[in-house]
């Protein structure tokens, strides 16, 4: 992993990943939207998580997160936390 990125930069990238997966206009995404609100259901949500993990080279915890109902802000927070946790790309 390189330098930690700014929150704005992370947010823009997370928005772009969700927009691509959900096939929606990025302008319709809000920090407080849930994936479910955006029409990203069950398996699609897992794909969004995978895309974010791949993009940032991080690993989200397996448990304690309900990706369908969590907000986009939570995903951004999780990226920030995972990056802060170290540069090993969240190696297990």
């Amino acid at each position, binding site marked *: 992993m390189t330098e930690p990125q700014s929150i704005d930069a992370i947010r823009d990238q997370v928005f772009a990943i969700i927009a691509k997966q959900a096939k929606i206009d990025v302008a319709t995404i809000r920090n407080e939207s849930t994936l479910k609100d955006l029409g990203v*259901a*069950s*398996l699609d949500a*897992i794909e969004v*998580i*995978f895309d974010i993990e791949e993009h940032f080279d991080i690993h989200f915890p*397996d*448990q304690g997160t*309900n*990706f369908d109902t969590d907000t986009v802000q939570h995903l951004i927070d999780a990226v920030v936390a995972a990056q802060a946790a170290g540069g090993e790309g969240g190696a*297990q």
Partner: protein
Amino acid sequence: MTEVDNRAIAITGMGAISAFGEGAEALWSGLREGRSGIRPLRHERAADLRVRIAAQVPESFDPAAHFGERALPMLDRASQFALYAANEAVAQSGLDFAAGGLGGRTGVVIGTGVGGETTQDEQSRRLYAENATRLHPLTIVRLMINAPASQISMAHGLRGPSFAVASACASTNHAIAQAALMIRAGLIDVAVAGGTEACLSYGALRAWEAMRVLADDTCRPFSGNRRGLVLGEGAGVFVLESMAHARARGANILGVLAGVGMSADAGDIVAPDPAGSGSAMAQALADAGLAPEDIDYINAHGTGTPANDPTETRAIHAVFGAHAPKLAVSSTKSMHGHALGASGALELVAVLGAMRDGVVPPTANLDVADPACDLDYVPNQPRELKVRAALSNSFAFGGLNAVLAVRAA
């Protein structure tokens, strides 16, 4: 009575291998005591994996002790399990397939989710990681999904219709249903049927991790603190006979396969639909000529995932109505893990054991109530209960459902 009898199938032999070790009795005694077969994952790459636990066949299982030097190189772990369980079931049935041409009137139907996964994984590793250009010559015959059925047919001289059935986690129940329907149709008198799975390869474990459905602590079906499923492995195989054939030879009948029900959700590839699973349960009852009130026990699909358990509960309510709260419903996956294509087989051992001993196995690790799971799940302690008839549920990824209705002999 006569009409029902023609549709009913006698189960006259059972065999299994599971996290409880070798034999159907080892499995059943573990379940009836509420013991868990879930242990820390044994795998050469366990340190790299996020999967920490599994319900694996113990290391004490020594294939060389059971299979000849010539047979062993042909046997993927999935075939080893299936053959072990089939040998046990056939021995218990007391059938002699060489006598009177019986082998020609006996079929083999074995369910498995993925077949020879560890063979595939190992050969892929050689190919891509070691840049090998030469693979083991028996790779194809080991990994093919019909290998377990073929090996059983070869070992016992069974020459009737024989094949594999694949429907992920419902594979066993679909396989047993196919065998039963062939017996009913008069194509065969006897079937050796069940399921096997041995897919805890590095690649498959990584794929399961990616799906984010695995529990990291243990399997807690129907519990408010459930965290997902725990992978298992093993096999269960049964000898099925037409009732007339079993009675004519005075066979010891372990239980009666009275009906089968199958359906497809035709919806989401993973999210379960209570209409689909409910339809399979209702069809199994109707096929068996049983009313909801006749059922005392349901061995639930009960994976311990957030999605399955409330959905299965809703389906049971819809099918059983006022009788639903009176049912004993348990998920033995809490103890033998989710053996995927073999799970229905391990669970049929539990159903037959419960009928024989009058003891229902518990749902282990159920310690937090969930308002969305409001049935009697026989939490944590086995229960003495006379089981006249039972359902065994299997609902697969892909929305494929298969339910067996079993009654006491």
